[in-house]
């Protein structure tokens, strides 16, 4: 066998153990869920019955649009805020920027249940925020917890730090000389952003969008504790269909549907990453 062939074998041998675990705990269960989803919940026959019901049942359709709405709005808002934060952190040298730089990634490491619990006690009915605003003489407060707003808020809390981290690292790679020469040539801040910063960090932006989208669409903990009873996001609806109604086939179809949406994002992600490898 040639040397490169031997190296190749070595590479495969090193990867196989982790891939085997991946196969057992992820790939097999996914295949199983796909098969389950194709067995009609009512008739027990093989077919697309569960999926058809998913898109024709009015309550379920509401859940789907609601989930997409929450996911897309949260993703775009997270991205917008993270970009502003990353740009600010990249170009500001003040002590405040240094503090934000030190603190912003703390939420990434805080357990989800705890953070959600903290958000509920802070923004809830009679929560700390209401009390503090009362001190300032403001006694009207929008409903946040158990509502659409709370869900988006929680998603922002969980995803902005992650996206900011990705984008800051990409912006750190933008050379100062590029920015300075553009400034010297008279570019204003918007031109600077759209002509230089955005194109240079475009790939990272896609990475951020992909992971934020995947994280939000199937999320369970935060919407379970914060969300409204109806309509529900799909993650929570799926759990209820499974444990309250014991409709395994329907809940599998819901999971596979979310998986397909994520796969579209994953496809673009891999394509963006793939382009880089060819260069």
């Amino acid at each position: 066998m040639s040397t490169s062939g031997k190296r190749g074998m070595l590479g495969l041998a090193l990867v196989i153990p982790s891939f085997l675990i991946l196969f057992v705990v992820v790939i097999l269960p996914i295949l199983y869920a796909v098969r389950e989803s194709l067995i009609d919940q009512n008739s027990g026959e093989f077919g697309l019955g569960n999926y058809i019901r998913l898109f024709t049942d009015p309550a379920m359709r509401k859940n789907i649009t609601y989930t997409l709405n929450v996911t897309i709005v949260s993703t775009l808002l997270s991205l917008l805020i993270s970009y502003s934060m990353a740009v600010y952190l990249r170009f500001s040298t003040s002590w405040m920027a240094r503090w934000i730089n030190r603190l912003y990634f703390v939420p990434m490491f805080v357990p989800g249940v705890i953070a959600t619990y903290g958000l509920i006690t802070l923004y809830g009915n009679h929560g700390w925020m209401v009390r503090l605003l009362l001190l300032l003489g403001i006694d009207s407060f929008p409903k946040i917890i158990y509502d659409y707003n709370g869900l988006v808020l929680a998603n922002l809390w969980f995803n902005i730090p992650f996206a900011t981290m990705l984008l800051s690292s990409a912006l750190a790679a933008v050379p100062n000389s590029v920015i300075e020469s553009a400034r010297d040539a008279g570019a204003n801040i918007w031109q600077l952003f759209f002509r230089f910063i955005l194109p240079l960090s475009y790939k990272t932006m896609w990475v951020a969008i992909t992971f934020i989208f995947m994280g939000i669409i199937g999320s369970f903990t935060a919407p379970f504790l914060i969300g409204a009873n109806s309509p529900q996001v799909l993650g929570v609806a799926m759990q209820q269909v499974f444990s309250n109604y014991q409709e395994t086939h329907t809940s599998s179809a819901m999971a596979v549907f979310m998986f397909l949406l994520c796969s579209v994002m994953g496809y673009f992600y891999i394509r963006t990453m793939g382009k880089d490898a060819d260069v």
Partner: protein
Amino acid sequence: MNWYFRSLGARRIVEFVLLVVFVIFFLGPLLNLLILAVSGKWQYPAALPQSWSLEWWQFVLSQDDVLESISLSFLIATVVTVCSIIVCIPAAYAFARIAFPLSRWFLFSFLLTHAFPKMGLYVSIAVLFYKFGLMNTFLGIVLIHMVNTLMFMTWIPSSAFRSVHRAQEESARDAGAGPLRVFWKITLPMAFPGIMVASIFTFLSSLDEAQGTLLVGIPDFKTMPIIMYSIIADYPNTTGAVFSVILTLPTVILLVAARRFVSADVLAGGFQVK
């Protein structure tokens, strides 16, 4: 020059407002829990507790299942981290340094752990575990925790290995060091920050995992987050806050201890597979 100072002042004010919004939004929920945990009486509409007290700490720490859950969680998280390191680091190295068939296909397959909704995945895993007799076993819990850690543990160290300059490895080889020695003395130390960050991620995500544990570990494996769910449901707010602080403590300690290693670049590199 007057306009300059005025604009500087405005900028400072805007920055300060930003900082305040940032602190309230991201740290407010945590600060609120911290205050709640040491409050005795805190009735609406008082902005701060009427009385301070540690009585709930005594209550929480005197519960047997709470103490057990803490040691169980740490045991599981340690085992998960060690297993993930043993299984994933060789793969990470292979992805970074060795050209082998289908390598990119293998590399991207780890994205699957994040593409399928967790709840659906756990349910399917539970069905499989039931067939294999892995329900309510330690091994089952470790495996289901590894669902969340495989990708971090492979991608982040892989990017760290890739950023080690080949020239350095080659010069060590030229000096007569064998491949294993080069790995131990040159490559591994240089990739250490990435491995460290991935391990912290792994440890914390295992400590934090609730849904999978709940499905697979019932009824014997009550980890900290699972106790937390029942505390939120059954006890007054203060108890939940106390337990939240206990559950967040390892995170804070680990982050402070590993502050040197946790940087945006190391983490971000892991998500941008090359």
